[in-house]
């Protein structure tokens, strides 16, 4: 399974691990991954460093933190219909990784429309769970195509709220607000700056910092030494390749 002969990590595999890292230290909360790579990340975290994590199967089951005896496949350990998910959202015991059609420098997210809400140029999916998620518990974002179209100065419609809007609400309404990390196909970003604007946390192996800046529609805070996103361990690679995603569907999310 592991050891010599194993090829180096692909970009998708580096992204899976970067997504997994988003849930490190969260304890017994519900992980809400949206998208395949975040789902693989949540599962990888649960099977390695975050065994208490509750991971949905995407419908109404909870996956046990173990592999099926037959090899690949999953063991269901619980029943969590979405009625119960709302309770966990309201109680704050959840950390989701959502997608975004637009995300701005304060972490405001848009999945509703492009253009004016009342007369959109493009009607997108709708606000979905974002208004409740972003104010009740931590959220992170997965952006498989880091570009100036997605990372914009200002979102056309705020569905999930960022740090400027949370600050405007003030206490106590904003006490559960946190945008944890943004994982893209180029880098990992966060909001650990005095103004709570977006910062470059690490670049994926082989990605020049300049490429990240050029693909971002607003100025990023860049540390003097930009770390490189951690590579998967041999054990993690084996889990991803042999158990979690043997058909390598992860590679197609980054086309």
């Amino acid at each position, binding site marked *: 399974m592991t050891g010599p002969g194993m090829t180096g990590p692909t970009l998708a595999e580096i992204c899976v691990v970067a997504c997994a890292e988003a849930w490190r230290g969260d304890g017994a909360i519900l992980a809400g991954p949206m998208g395949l790579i975040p789902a693989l990340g949540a599962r990888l975290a649960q099977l390695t460093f975050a065994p208490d994590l509750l991971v949905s199967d995407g*419908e*109404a089951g909870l996956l046990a933190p173990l592999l099926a005896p037959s090899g690949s496949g999953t063991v269901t350990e619980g*029943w969590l*219909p*979405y*009625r119960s998910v*709302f309770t966990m*959202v*309201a109680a704050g015991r959840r950390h989701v990784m959502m997608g975004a059609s637009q995300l701005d420098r304060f972490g405001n997210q848009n999945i*509703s429309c492009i253009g004016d*809400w*009342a007369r*959109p*140029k*493009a*009607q*997108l*999916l*709708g*606000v*979905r*769970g*974002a*208004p*409740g*998620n*972003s*104010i*009740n518990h931590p959220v992170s974002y997965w952006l498989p195509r880091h570009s100036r179209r997605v990372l914009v100065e200002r979102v056309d*419609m*705020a*569905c*999930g*709220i960022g740090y400027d*809007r*949370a600050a*405007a*609400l003030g206490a*106590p*309404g*904003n006490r*559960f607000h946190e945008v944890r990390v943004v994982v893209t196909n180029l880098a990992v970003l966060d909001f650990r700056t005095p103004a709570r604007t977006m910062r470059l946390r690490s670049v994926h192996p082989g990605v020049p910092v300049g490429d990240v800046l050029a693909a971002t529609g607003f100025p990023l805070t860049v540390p003097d030494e930009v770390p490189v996103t951690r590579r998967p361990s041999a054990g993690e690679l084996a889990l991803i390749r042999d158990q979690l995603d043997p058909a390598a569907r992860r590679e197609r999310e980054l086309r």
Partner: protein
Amino acid sequence: MAEIVSLAEAVALAVRDGDTVAMEGFTHLIPFAAGHEVIRQRRRDLTLVRMTPDLIYDQLIGAGCVRKLVFSWGGNPGVGSLHRFRDAVEHSWPGPLELEEHSHAGMANRYVAGASGLPFAVLRGYAGTGLMAEGMASVRPITCPFTGEILTAVSALNPDVAIVHAQRADTSGNVQLWGITGVQKEAVLAAERSIVTVEEVVPHLDPRPGSVVLPSWTVSYVAEAAGGSRPSYALGYYERDNDYYVAWDPIARDRDAFRRWLDTEIFGMAETMGGR
């Protein structure tokens, strides 16, 4: 007490032009046969309510039945956009479509309030989002009388008609559904009238773990419609037809292809699933 009628009769009796209609069912048990019958009977100016509009509302919108949509997520699950929905919003085809947009939890709680006979539900969400800025009549800030925290009130949903699909009803019109259930119970209890299509009418309902039972007195009409949630699935009866969702994309992208679909699959068919 629920009357057991044909699907065509149920729609003719319960759904009127201009009604607010909620068709619910989450992932499975989506009431497609009933939606198609609404198109076939050429209802107009409907306000459609649904947490997660998917193909069923794309079809109703494209067919010109709908004036307004109340929703929290509209897409073709696992495939992409709803192109009839987008065409209506972006190009007013076949007519303009007004939107009232809520979060998932907001929609679910609005049904609960409606079913409970209360005027609104309270959430922490919405604060700071664009939804508060758009001045929708169904969303208002509210101050907690105990802590002073500013929260969000969303108005109750009380549809004229709720339409859901279930696995079974008994001959008295008691309804039973199981598997992944959504807000079907709340939608039916909140609505003035209701239609439940079922895979089969059986003499007796036997217990199932986690099932939702709608007593006959909460339901207006029960209609047998075997296969009535295809291409979604009915646990214990049939699987989801994933290929159909993929095949829908090119039909919905093209107005002419969609018209042909309407002519052959809807208007060209008598009500086929709801025989008496």
